[in-house]
């Protein structure tokens, strides 16, 4: 059987001072993620999962359930409070052999790497698309420049080659190539989202994080963006981590799904199973209200 590309175990993040009672007094059973004793927010606690190659894993839950926190932790934007993230040996990070000990199938805990190493891992393997294009794009810089930034980070130093690559990606994401030197500021929301996708794909990532990518777009644009994501997944052999509160999006994109509430995973399994036979009370409510 195929081994997972990344193994995540016990991933946790707490905002605030924290106390001994935080974990026992928050969570879905307590209907809160704010610790009543010290006021800390348990954004994400003990999340474990595997992500396989060319697989789309959905994370669904209401706002404040820790979905986006999870993505930020995996993308090394925030420092995790605990847990491990291990990478399979087949995911090659140039110039970073030292994270794999001889003979081991999995790397050392990525969360323990230096900021410099984390950035190398991120540049080599990861792409991210945010709900808000302002987070993922430099709005004043040309669209081609936005894509080139990742290439420059990976050591590209040829303007012609970078422009060629940007043009290819923009074409792939259905942005007219003649608008390549325009800043994303001039574009519509759907186009901005597609520039973000082009930027995320520029370094040929293995893992693509999608954080509420279609939220806020109108339905016809949503459909085109989802279509695009589906086709690039098979074309680029990507592993997707899809965060959404919209079960429709999850249903369309993901084979497996995790349901989160108050920072905990309450249910996980095949998407069809979860949608047709939800076990947890919250999932039942979610499915009943949306489908």
């Amino acid at each position, binding site marked *: 059987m195929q081994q997972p590309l990344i193994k995540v175990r016990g991933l946790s993040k707490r905002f605030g001072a924290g106390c001994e009672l935080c974990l026992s007094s928050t969570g879905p059973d307590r209907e809160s993620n704010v610790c009543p004793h010290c006021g800390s927010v348990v954004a994400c606690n003990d999340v474990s999962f595997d992500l396989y190659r060319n697989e789309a894993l959905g994370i669904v839950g209401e706002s404040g359930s820790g979905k986006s926190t999870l993505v930020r932790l995996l993308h090394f934007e925030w420092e995790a409070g605990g847990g491990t993230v291990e990478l399979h040996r087949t995911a090659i990070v140039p110039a970073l052999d030292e994270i794999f000990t001889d003979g081991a199938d999995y790397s050392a805990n990525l969360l323990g790497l230096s900021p410099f190493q984390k950035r190398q891992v991120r540049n080599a393997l990861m792409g991210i698309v945010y709900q808000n294009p302002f987070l993922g794009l430099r709005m004043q*810089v040309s669209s*081609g*420049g936005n894509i*080139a*930034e990742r290439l420059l980070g990976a050591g590209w*130093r040829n303007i012609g080659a970078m422009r060629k690559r940007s043009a290819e990606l923009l074409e792939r994401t259905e942005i007219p190539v003649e608008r390549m030197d325009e800043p994303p500021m001039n574009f519509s929301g759907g186009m901005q989202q597609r520039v973000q996708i082009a930027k995320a794909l520029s370094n040929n990532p293995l893992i693509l994080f999608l954080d509420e990518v279609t939220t806020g777009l109108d339905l016809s644009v949503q459909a085109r963006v989802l279509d695009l994501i589906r086709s690039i997944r098979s074309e680029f052999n990507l592993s997707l981590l899809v965060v959404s509160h919209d079960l429709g999006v999850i249903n369309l994109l993901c084979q497996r799904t995790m349901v989160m509430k108050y920072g905990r995973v309450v249910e996980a399994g095949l998407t069809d199973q979860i949608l047709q036979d939800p076990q947890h009370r919250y999932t039942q409510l979610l499915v009943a209200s949306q489908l």
Partner: protein
Amino acid sequence: MQMREWLDHNDARPGEDDDRATGYPFGFMDEGAKREVRRSILKAVAIPGYQVPYGSREMPIARGWGTGGIQITLSLVLPEDVLKVIDQGCDGSVNAVNIKKFVQAVADVEITTDTRSATVIQTRHRIPEEPMTAEQILVLQVPYPEALREVEPSEAETRRMHAEADYSRMWLFLYEDIVKYGEISISYRFPVTVNGRYIMDPSPIPRWDVPKLHMADTLFLFGAGREKRIYAIPPHTRVEPLEFEDHLFRVEDFSGKVCARCGASDTFMDEIIDNEAGERLYYCSDSGYCDKRYGQCNNH
């Protein structure tokens, strides 16, 4: 009141018949301060291109007028040194003359305008045309030591970027420049990579002077008094301007231009417009070099 008089006037002991300022330690700064500056210089030399923070002292001129350079010069000079000070290539500008007089008053050094005979040269925004030797030190005054400031206003963030060699935003800035204008539009303060590691601001020298920093025989010291940073390029260090494979760095083009005074055609030139004649004239920016050539021509 002349500085000489002021120094005498404020001296606790009545001034002896001595050319040096009395009541002040040699070189104006106290020994502890000089030692700190020297320590910072040593660290800067050990890590080429890295900006070493130091406790910039008050000087008798305003911050931003060359206090960083002056502190380096004062902490280095010995009475037997020969000092040259230039301001944008010119030995005779007010700023250069004031600094020269000050250092002479407090450290009793000899003053020259000849690049070859100087042992220490303090400069604002130029590197002399004549090649310098391993026996000489060039001290550059720096207004903005942070090369990344253009793309990132936060000091904490630029320090992180340097620490992690995260320079993609600087490169992006240059990429955008090329997309907009067809070439990099930075005319002075052209960012360079030092020893393959740090991106460094070479101070506002023109592009013309940037290649002189590469694998030079001379030690280059950079002092930013207002920003409290010292950095250095030791001799024989790689200094590469940021460039792309298909858009190479190039210096200013003065082809066809000749200095109206000394006839040089291989120097960095200032354009002067003669209002009466309506002519465009070019003069060497390095006045010491121009004087030397002019003198040679007139002796024949």
